[in-house]
């Protein structure tokens, strides 16, 4: 087909093309952009569910009240800590696992199944089984492990609620990191690696100078995608600690402001803080993904 025919062909298709694209775009507009605009409006209004008449434009006073409230700064810090711990643990653990599984091991298929499994466990299940079967200080499995080494049992959720939640979430995301890194390792040029080995490069040098540079891009993508989901960690908090300053993140703060304190204005403001936060990361991710569209 000549180039001119291709363009004619395409312009002939553009009418139906738009028609077929429209429903998907409409649903996304209705479920994301429209409510986001309403959230912005709420965040600038005095709106309490208990006083329905109290709505009206109040400028930035919801934001001021939110920032001044004793819950806000801890929630922001908790969100950042949670993301940092989960990213560090899942990427370090995932890299270790990926390197192990990429080597010449027996039964790699079975190993993959074991490693990927936690990713498919719904958040309430993983949170409750970690809390009650593993971390429980009296009869949990970790208490037994500690006793084996003559250590006192550690009361995870009383002493370190955020760390406990972060460990559970890290366990859910470690398979994702491991699988992506394994996929990337397997696309690595074997010959290059073998040549380096023949030239006497140590395994550490190969990791440092060949593999890690190759993995930089997948690691960046893991960081961004996990962060997008980690900004919204909610169920794990709801079913373990049920909130509290020590373990409330931004997502949970929005829930408690709106559903427990009926303060729609402040909750909307908190939600928008999370949105701004996510947007900063989104810019980077969209750039990385946009590049792959050209390839």
């Amino acid at each position, binding site marked *: 087909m000549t180039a001119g025919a291709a363009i004619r062909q395409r312009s002939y298709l*553009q009418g139906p*093309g*738009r028609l*077929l*694209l429209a*429903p*998907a*775009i409409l*649903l*996304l507009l*209705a*479920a*994301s952009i*429209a*409510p986001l605009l309403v*959230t912005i409006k709420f965040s600038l209004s005095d709106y309490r569910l208990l006083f329905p008449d109290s709505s009206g434009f109040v400028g930035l006073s919801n934001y001021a009240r939110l920032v001044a409230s004793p819950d806000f700064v801890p929630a922001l810090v908790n969100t950042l800590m949670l993301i940092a711990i989960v990213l560090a643990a899942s990427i370090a653990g995932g890299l270790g*696992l990926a390197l192990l599984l990429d080597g010449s*091991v*027996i*039964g790699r298929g079975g190993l*993959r199944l074991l*490693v*990927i499994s*936690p*990713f*498919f*466990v*719904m958040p*309430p*299940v*993983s949170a*409750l*089984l*970690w809390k009650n*079967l*593993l971390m429980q200080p009296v009869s949990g499995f970790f*208490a037994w492990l500690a006793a084996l080494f003559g250590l006192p049992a550690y009361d995870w959720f009383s002493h370190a609620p955020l760390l406990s939640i972060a460990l559970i979430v890290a*366990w859910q995301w470690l*398979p994702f990191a491991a699988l*992506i890194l394994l*996929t990337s390792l397997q696309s690595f040029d074997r010959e290059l690696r073998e040549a380096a080995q023949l030239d006497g490069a140590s395994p550490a040098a190969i990791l440092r100078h060949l593999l890690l540079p190759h993995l930089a891009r997948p690691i960046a*993508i893991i960081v961004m995608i996990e962060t*997008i989901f980690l*900004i919204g960690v*909610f*169920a794990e908090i*709801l*079913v373990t600690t049920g909130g509290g300053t020590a373990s409330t993140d*931004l*997502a949970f703060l929005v*829930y408690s402001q*709106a559903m427990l304190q009926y303060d729609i204005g402040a909750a909307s403001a908190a939600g*928008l803080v999370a*949105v701004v936060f996510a*947007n900063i*990361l989104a810019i980077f*991710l*969209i750039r990385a993904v*946009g590049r792959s*569209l050209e390839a």
Partner: protein
Amino acid sequence: MRTRRRYRAIATMFAWAASLTIAFPLLWTLLTSFKTELEAVSFPPRFLSFDWTLANYRGILAEGDYLHSLINSVIVAGGSSALVLALAIPAAWSMAFAPTRRTRGILLWMLSTKMLPPVGVFIPIFLFYRDWGLLDSRTGLVLLLAAANLPIAAWMLFSNFRDVPGEILEAARMDGASLWQELVSVLAPLALPGIASTFFLVFTLAWNESFWTLNLVTTEATPLTAFIAAFSSPQGLFWARLSAASILSIVPVLLIGWLCQRQLVRGLTFGAVK
């Protein structure tokens, strides 16, 4: 040669030890689900020497709550995934075979809506659902979860459709096939593996979704996520029972996940890692 074999044995040992550690919480849950409540809290824990029982499974299946939630989960996850495909297949066809100057921008815009945290839109949607009677309804969840997973599906299908040679579709068009026939009888069979893995991925994501399903439903439409979350109340703490309920809730998507793990990487990274 011998050092190589030894190296392989050691690597295998480490790999299995690490992988079993990762899967241990699930294996432990499976074991606990066959214990009595008393044995589930015994200290030191029993590993294999306990009276194996199916009583927990029998108890949960006998009560209506689990089945009620299971049906809701199947309807909500299945319904939203079907809706996603119904919207994403035409959209992906349009972007792959009738691209315009704006296609790239639309793809990236779809991706950006996935990056909007649910709490950013939670309150308006909650109030709207309250006023329109969509709270605690399966329809409400189906619509929302479809919107949540549509970007991922559109991307996965778009990258799949691009591998389909456009000449085949053109030939069908020359032979007088309508657009509907082209989509259903020509494209769908050619791209079936991609469509199936897209369905399974969004089904899994919808099955496990734990923000909307915990906040928008109370009794009638509760899926398994809410059924399990109810165990967090103090009177719900029976661990053998919790274990059995957990196993029953995760097995369907675990099986699906095992089958589709390779497409998972491509889908969740929006094609950036293949």
